[in-house]
C-alpha cells in the first residue's frame, strides 16, 4: 500500500510520521503549487471551493508519483467538505485511477465506520504500536502549535524577518526528527530557545490582528498566499483563531468550541457548518480582547462563510472592530491581497492613532 495524503499547514509533519510508524510506505505529494491548482481546476466542478481543487490537484500529482491509496477526512455536514472524499473518489475513478480512499469519518458520529477505516491503517503493526505512536503524534501536534504561535508573536518584532522564518523552519525540522515524546519535548525547547535568540525590537507595539475563517484557507499558506507571513513581515502581530491541535481535539472528540459559539449566539444562534458560526464568535472575542482588527478568510462560494459575511457588518459595527473579508479562489493574485491588506492596515493604524490621541 503506497499511501498519500493532502497538505494542510504543518499537519503533514504529524501525519507522515504517524503513517510511517504504522508501517506504511508514503508517497509525498509535491507541495501545492500553481501547477497543482491548475490540475485541480481542470477536473473539479466549477463551483467547488478552493480546498477541493487544491486537494484534487494534490491527489493527481501524488497518483502520478505512484500512490495507490489516499488518506483523507470525512464529515457529517452541513459544510460540503465532509463530502469531498466521495466526490474525489468518483472523479479519480472516472479519470481511470483505481485509487483506494481511506476516509476517516468523525469517530463519535459514525464510530463503526471510523474503526473500520482505522483498522485498515493499523493492520501492518498492530494496535499496541498504534497506541504508542499515537502518543508521540499527539505530542508533536501540540508542540507544532506552540512553536507556531510563538513565531506569530515574535515575527513582527524581529529585526530580520528572513532570519526568524529560517529559524522557525529549522525548528520544524527538529520536531520532525524526534522519535519519542521526550525527544519531542526537547526539540520544542531547543526550537523555542533558538526563536527567542533572534534579535528583536522590544519597544515595538505591533498592530494586533485576528485571523479567522474557513479552516483550510486559514491553515494552508498556499491557499491564502501566506497571509500570516505577509502580515508578520509588515510588522503585524497575527493571532490565528484555529490551530491544528484544538481543531483536532474538538472535532475528533465531539462538538467542541462551545465558548466561541456561545459568543456568536446573539447574532447567529444556529450551527451553519464549517466555521461559519465560529467566525462570528471569534470576532466578538477579538473585540473584547482589544484587537485592532480582524481578517476573515474564506474560499469563494463557501456557504457557511457567506452566511457569516452577511452578518459580519452588524457585528463589526456593534463591537467597533474593523473586519476585512477576503474570498479566495484560483483567480486570486498575491498583489491584490497585498494591496487590500496594506489599505486595511493603514486604516487600523489611523484608528489606533485617533484612540491614543483622545
Amino acid at each position, binding site marked *: 500500500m503506497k499511501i498519500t495524503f493532502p497538505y494542510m499547514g504543518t499537519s503533514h509533519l504529524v501525519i507522515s510520521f504517524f503513517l510511517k510508524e504504522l508501517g506504511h510506505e508514503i508517497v509525498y505529494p509535491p507541495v501545492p503549487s500553481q501547477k497543482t491548482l491548475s490540475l485541480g481546476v481542470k477536473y473539479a*466542478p466549477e*463551483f467547488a471551493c478552493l480546498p477541493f481543487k487544491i486537494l484534487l490537484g494534490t491527489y493527481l500529482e501524488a497518483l502520478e508519483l505512484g500512490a495507490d491509496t489516499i488518506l483523507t477526512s470525512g464529515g457529517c455536514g*452541513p459544510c*460540503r467538505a465532509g463530502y469531498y472524499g466521495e466526490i474525489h473518489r*468518483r472523479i479519480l475513478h472516472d479519470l481511470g485511477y483505481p485509487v483506494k480512499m481511506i476516509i476517516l469519518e468523525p469517530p463519535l458520529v459514525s464510530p463503526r465506520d471510523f474503526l473500520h477505516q482505522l483498522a485498515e491503517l493499523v493492520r501492518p503493526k498492530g494496535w499496541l504500536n498504534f497506541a504508542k505512536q499515537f502518543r508521540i503524534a499527539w505530542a508533536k501536534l501540540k508542540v507544532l502549535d506552540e512553536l507556531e504561535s510563538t513565531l506569530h508573536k515574535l515575527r513582527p518584532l524581529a529585526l530580520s524577518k528572513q532570519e526568524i522564518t529560517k529559524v522557525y523552519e529549522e525548528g520544524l525540522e527538529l520536531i520532525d526528527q524526534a522519535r519519542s515524546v521526550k525527544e519531542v519535548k526537547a526539540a520544542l525547547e531547543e526550537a523555542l530557545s533558538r526563536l527567542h535568540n533572534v534579535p528583536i525590537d522590544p519597544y515595538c507595539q505591533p498592530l494586533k490582528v485576528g485571523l479567522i475563517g474557513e479552516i483550510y484557507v486559514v491553515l494552508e499558506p498556499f491557499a491564502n498566499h501566506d497571509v500570516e507571513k505577509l502580515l508578520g513581515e509588515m510588522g503585524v502581530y497575527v493571532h490565528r483563531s484555529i490551530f491544528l491541535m484544538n481543531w483536532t481535539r474538538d472535532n475528533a472528540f465531539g462538538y467542541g468550541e462551545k465558548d466561541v459559539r456561545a459568543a456568536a449566539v446573539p447574532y*447567529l444562534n*444556529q450551527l451553519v457548518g464549517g466555521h461559519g458560526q465560529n467566525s462570528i464568535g471569534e470576532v466578538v472575542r477579538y473585540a473584547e480582547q482589544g484587537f485592532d482588527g480582524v481578517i476573515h478568510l474564506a474560499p469563494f462560494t463557501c456557504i*457557511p462563510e457567506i*452566511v457569516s459575511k452577511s452578518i459580519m457588518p452588524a457585528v463589526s459595527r456593534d463591537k467597533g472592530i474593523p473586519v476585512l473579508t477576503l474570498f479566495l479562489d484560483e483567480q486570486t493574485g498575491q498583489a491584490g491581497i497585498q494591496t487590500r491588506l496594506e489599505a486595511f492596515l493603514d486604516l487600523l493604524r489611523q484608528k489606533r492613532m485617533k484612540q491614543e490621541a483622545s
Partner: protein
Amino acid sequence: MRVGIPRTLSYFTFYPLWKPFFETLGAEVIVSPESNKELLDDGVRNTVTDACVPIKLFHGHVAALIDKVDILFMPRLVSLDGKSTLCPKFLGLPDMVKYSIAGLPEIIENRLDLKKGKMELYRFLYGIGRRFTANRLKIMHAIYRAKYNFANYRKLLFKGLTPVEAFACLEGGQEPSVQLIDGALKLAVVGYPYNLYDNFISIGLLTKLRRYGVQVVTPEMVPDKEMKRLSKKLRKNLFWYYSNQVVWAAIYYLEDKNLDGIIHLTAFGCGPDSMTNKIIELECKAKKVPFITVSIDEHTGEAGVETRVEAFVDLIKRKKGMV
C-alpha cells in the same frame, strides 16, 4: 393580522401547508408578488455579493412585503426528514435577512428541526399558533386542516402537476386537469423547486420545453416510496435535503428506459450543487444518457438559455433520428 410569506425558497414545497394553517388561525395570508426584475434588483442591493441568486431573490421578496404585513413568516428550516439538513444558507436565513434589511416587521423565525423527533412538526406549528390564539383546540384544528391540505397537494404532484399548477387546482377547488403532453421526448428537469418553478428565475424553462413538445418530469413527481428506496443506494448521501431529492430523482429517472436526457438547473455559485451536479453528470455518463447543466444568475438572459436548451433538444432529436 396579516402574515407575509415570501414567494420563493420553501414556498414551493410548503405553501399548501402554511396557508390553511394561518387562515384557520384567523390570519390573512399575503404572498409577495411573483418574482420580477425589480424584486431581484432590490434583493441584489440588500445581499452580500457572494450569495446565490435564490437568496438574493428572497431578500427582494422580503423587502416587497415590509409595508404590507404585520408579521413576516420566515421559519428557520433545519431538517425536514430527520436525517439531512438544509443548505447552510437556509439555516442562517433569518439572521442574514435581519442584518441586511432595515425596518422589518415582527418575524416568525421558529426552528423546524425534525432531527429532534417526529413530534417536532406539531411542536413547531403549535409554537407558532400560540402567537395568534390561546385556544388550543383552534390550533389543533389549524394543524389538522394544514396537514389535510398538504396531503392533497402531494397527491396532485404525483399525478404529474408542477407545484404552481397544483396550487391553482387547490385554490380553484376543481379537479386536476392533468394534461400530460405525451411528447415525443421525455426529459427530466432536476433542480431545486425554488429555481425550477419560479418562472422568472428559470426563464420559463419548463414552459419552453413543453412548447418544444417535450414531456417534462421533475423531482417533485417522484413517489415517496421510490425516494425512500433510492435513499439507500448511494454509498454516502449528501448532507442537504433538497440536494438529496435532486440526486435521488435523477437516479430514479435514469432507471427509466424511455428517458431521453437530463437537464440540471443550478444557480451560479451554488455550493451544494457543485457536488450534486458532478454526481448526476457521472451517473448520466455511466448510463450514456445526454446531460446538460443550465446555470442561472441575476444576469442570465433569455436568449442564452433558450439557445442552449434548444440545441440540447435538437441534438437528442437527431440522435433518435427524428430530424
